């Protein structure tokens, strides 16, 4: 059975019909990617899954529970975490405080070990532990956002454009981290405009176009699909 299963989801912003009946699922241990152009509805989808937005109709099931109507603050404790678009780290708090906030729902005794794990994954964050987060570089901020998400020990981690605004070398680095999270057994739902990178790291993919899923399949196949190459890989 899949860890996350979305059925016929419709989301509106006022009168704007942003998501027009999409269905997809993510199984345990998978990396699934949602690719699509600007404004296709990728962020809207993730925000709805995690409860920041609410669907007009359709259903979202996570870990055997109907979570369609639940609010965002109750999702972390259930094992789902979103690393949002634009990172949204707490700029005026220190690196360590940001990480502590990531572990907000976890028992106190577990925080030290979680910090240890995150610092092992992102040694740079340990060096900057006491630094105010707003003064980190873009790449460091992305690492902090991912580390903060990991602090809640999620069953499913959703990443919204982790490579946005980063230099190519940092993009490589971020995708290496995603790959290593996958190897350690994390389940990941990845949203990207960088379709090339996303498809190379993912197991399966969905293509989103103006609120509809137009294509789906193993990431490998989509990477070699002519239509996808033309539309999303700039060929």
């Amino acid at each position, binding site marked *: 059975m899949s860890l996350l299963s979305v059925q016929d989801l419709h989301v509106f912003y006022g009168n704007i019909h942003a998501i027009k009946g999409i269905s997809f699922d993510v199984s345990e241990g998978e990396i699934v990617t949602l690719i699509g152009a600007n404004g296709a509805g990728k962020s809207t989808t993730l925000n709805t899954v995690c409860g920041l937005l609410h669907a007009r109709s359709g259903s979202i099931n996570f870990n055997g529970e109907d979570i369609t109507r639940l609010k965002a603050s109750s999702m972390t404790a259930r094992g789902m975490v979103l690393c*949002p678009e634009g990172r949204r780290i*707490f700029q005026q708090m220190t690196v360590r405080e940001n990480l502590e906030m990531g572990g907000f729902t976890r028992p106190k005794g577990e925080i030290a070990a979680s910090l240890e794990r995150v610092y092992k994954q992102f040694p740079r964050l340990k060096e900057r532990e006491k630094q105010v987060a707003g003064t980190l570089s873009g790449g460091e901020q992305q690492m902090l956002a991912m580390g903060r998400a990991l602090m809640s020990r999620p069953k499913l981690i959703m990443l919204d454009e982790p490579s946005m605004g980063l230099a190519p070398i940092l993009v490589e680095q971020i995708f290496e981290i995603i790959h290593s999270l996958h190897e350690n057994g994390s389940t990941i739902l990845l949203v990207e405009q960088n379709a090339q990178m996303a498809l190379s790291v993912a197991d399966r993919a969905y293509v989103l176009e103006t609120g509809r899923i137009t294509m789906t399949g193993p990431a490998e196949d989509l990477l070699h699909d002519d239509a996808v190459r033309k539309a999303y890989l700039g060929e």
Partner: protein
Amino acid sequence: MAQFLEALINGISLGSLYAIIALGYSMVYGIAKMLNFAHGDVIMVGGYIVFIVLNNMGMPAALAIPAAMLVCVALGITIEGLAYRPLRQATSLAVLITAIGVSYFLQNAAQLIWGANPRFFTIMNYGNIPVSLGKDQFNISVGKLCSVGVSVVIMLGLSFFTGKTKMGKSMRAVSEDRGAAELMGINVNRTIALTFAIGSALAGVAGAMLVGVYGVQLSPTTGAMPGIKAFTAAVFGGIGSIPGAMIGGILIGVIEILVGTFISTDLKDALTFAVLIIMLVVKPTGLLGKPIREKV
């Protein structure tokens, strides 16, 4: 010289009262992103509770102050839940108008319950410390001195709370980015309610000081002027900043008393606000305020 020193000390003491009120404005503004216009009226209610418990029931002050704090906390949480929470997604103008409405509601309710006639409170005499400076002499009231101590303790306590505790840090997270805080699993409504509870407890303390130490006469509009002054202090010091509220409060108190003593009693309010306007022109974020970063 003695007159100046006496005015300075009185100013610092009055300022420390403003600081306690300003902390309430500032915390609520920083976390709920709203101007709680009714804050001054919660102070007034606190004043009445102290009056009733001390004067009418003849209980000691050690009971009156916690009673005032408790009632104010209950009132603050109720106001937040009934009036402000439903407007969480509304424009800030709608919230401000609601807050003004709540302010008038509290004033009218107080008038209904306690009547419009001002009540005079016999100031508790905690004693004076005589100070002599050459041939000049003046007295420092122990009560006023204590109020300075109380406000310093409150400021340090709040700084510790927001800086070091999990709850306090989550308040800062909500203050910075409500949505991101929610994604961490922080219950935003509960955090905002907690902020109101803290602010209102401070209003209770301020109400007790206002009537018990400063001998302000008690009427349904008693809270309005100190409220506005303290709001000025919060803006002056940089709204959202805890030490800012403290420094702003003391400065406004000192300016007010110095102007009242040496220039003119009639001008003291006008000049206090003039100083605020100059401050806002020179440094719009206030003394210790952080510039607000526009999200991209």
